[in-house]
């Protein structure tokens, strides 16, 4: 299992609900959480693959910022 870390702009309850739907439809995503307290609204995904592109694209297409947070 891989842990993928992203910087996002998910903040409102509405955005969180939408994110929930988006990630539920992403089969390689096993489990995820978001730290809304953090300045970077960090999204943490436990994934079957280490492919970050699909999650970034999914969020970007829905109009959200999503970048991989570098180590």
């Amino acid at each position: 299992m891989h842990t993928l870390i992203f910087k996002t702009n998910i903040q409102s309850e509405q955005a969180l609900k939408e994110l929930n739907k988006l990630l539920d439809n992403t089969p390689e995503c096993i489990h995820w959480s978001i730290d809304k307290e953090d300045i970077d609204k960090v999204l943490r995904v436990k994934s079957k693959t280490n492919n970050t592109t699909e999650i970034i694209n999914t969020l970007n297409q829905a109009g959200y910022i999503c970048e991989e947070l570098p180590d």
Partner: protein
Amino acid sequence: MRTRDEKKIEAIYKKAMQIIVSDGFDGLSMQKLAKAAGISPATIYIYFKDRDDLILKVAVKATEDMINATLKNFKPSMSLEKGLKKQWENRAEFWLENPLEAKFIEMIRHSHIGEGVFTKVKQEFSSVLGEFVHGAIERKELKKLPLEVYWAIAFSPLYTLIKFHNDGRSIGGKKFKWNDTYMKQALTLVLKALQP
């Protein structure tokens, strides 16, 4: 693939305790911690999902370290005298030699997360110490007392001496430094008080 880096985890735990002890729980943020530990916030998020998760894990680890130190070379079958002596030595060593963890654990105890942390880790601790106390009562080495009264008499004198040492001062601002003679004097009296 990212791999688990024990040195980085160690640094995260230590810096988190330092920040909490100096700035309080609210003074800790993932960004501040990353800066202090010289790592990227992303690295912290590999191991912890948010601030609350981090604080809980750091608290559990500090408490486990304390419990392991307290139970080092201690057997519940020991006599009251031997067992209590070992307990005092172990507790004194831990609380005197790890001032950062000691202060942090005190803060945890007095915070809203305290109860959760202790119920998570104290089970073995309670059963080992419970067995020791019950054995001592059965062998008529220890008076039968309510747990709180036993604990207050058995350990409060020790923690008072430790506190004096950590403050550098005792009553009325008198300078104080720990020494083993004080510990032995106090322990002798405690044993006298606890024996039937």
